């Protein structure tokens, strides 16, 4: 493309057509590579920030997890950091309450955590009195009865699954 009309400082030297095409297809390849790299970057997972890379506020919120933090998968870390963000808004009682349970919750197996989330949501459709009554009943049960109930629930859940 002739650039003769541009004022002298901006004028580019004339480029032969073949070189221009080669340069533009190289640019295309670079752009494509960059885009693909972004894709892979988004898909790939590092192991997330290490404990000493967290801010003081995050470390304060997640203090009960300091021991196990570096063993957590990246997604779990992201989830806990989201929780840490909401932590400052809690009342002092809320903060104490949450920290008392954090370590135990993080140590549950993924299956136990999934069950806990399910049971919690079910529990919160009930008034508090009924929730507390269910807890008392459960804690009064002998171990073998608890196992029996758990088995029955597992079978019921498996029966329901094919229908989904």
């Amino acid at each position, binding site marked *: 493309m002739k650039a003769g009309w541009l004022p002298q400082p901006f004028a580019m030297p004339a480029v032969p057509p073949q070189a221009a095409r080669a340069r533009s297809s190289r640019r295309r390849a670079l752009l494509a590579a960059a885009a693909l790299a*972004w894709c892979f970057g*988004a898909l790939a997972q590092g192991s997330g920030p290490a404990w000493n890379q967290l801010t003081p506020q995050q470390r304060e919120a997640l203090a009960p997890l300091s021991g196990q933090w570096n063993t957590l998968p990246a997604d779990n870390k992201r*989830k806990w950091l989201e929780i840490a963000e909401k932590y400052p808004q809690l009342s002092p009682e809320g903060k104490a309450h949450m920290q008392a349970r954090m370590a135990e919750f993080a140590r549950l197996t993924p299956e136990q955590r999934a069950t806990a989330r399910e*049971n*919690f949501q079910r529990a919160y459709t*009930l008034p508090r009195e009924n929730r507390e009554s269910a807890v008392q009943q459960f804690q009064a049960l002998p171990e073998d009865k608890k196992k029996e*109930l758990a088995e029955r*629930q597992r079978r019921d859940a498996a029966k329901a699954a094919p229908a989904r």
Partner: protein
Amino acid sequence: MNQDEFAFRVRQALNEGAERLDYKTVLRLEQARAAALARQRRASPATVRLPALQLAPAGAPPLASGGGARWLRGLGWAAPLLALAIGFVAIGHWQKEAEIRRLAALDFAVLLDDGPLEAYADRGFGALLQAERRIEP
């Protein structure tokens, strides 16, 4: 004093009363709020549009004119495929982020609650909760 003025002074008193809740009640309200937020109805990721990836409309000559990111046009024929790939990754990424946020809200509520974790983590407890449900009208 007219009715509005009187009512205003009552309102002031009521506001003061509302500020003065005991710490236990404050915690209960926090717990209820966290549990509610964990169930918030959200828009589904499929409705999120990704404007940067919009290509020229279907009938037009491919990438010849109109909107769409100019750098995509520079890629020629590879552009639609690449845009699609990026689109899928972006949506998948977005969905994963949304899922992490959803779990964070839920776990936040579980952590704040009183219910013992070893009860919640046990499937058998679910049976007792269901039984309570049947009693409740």
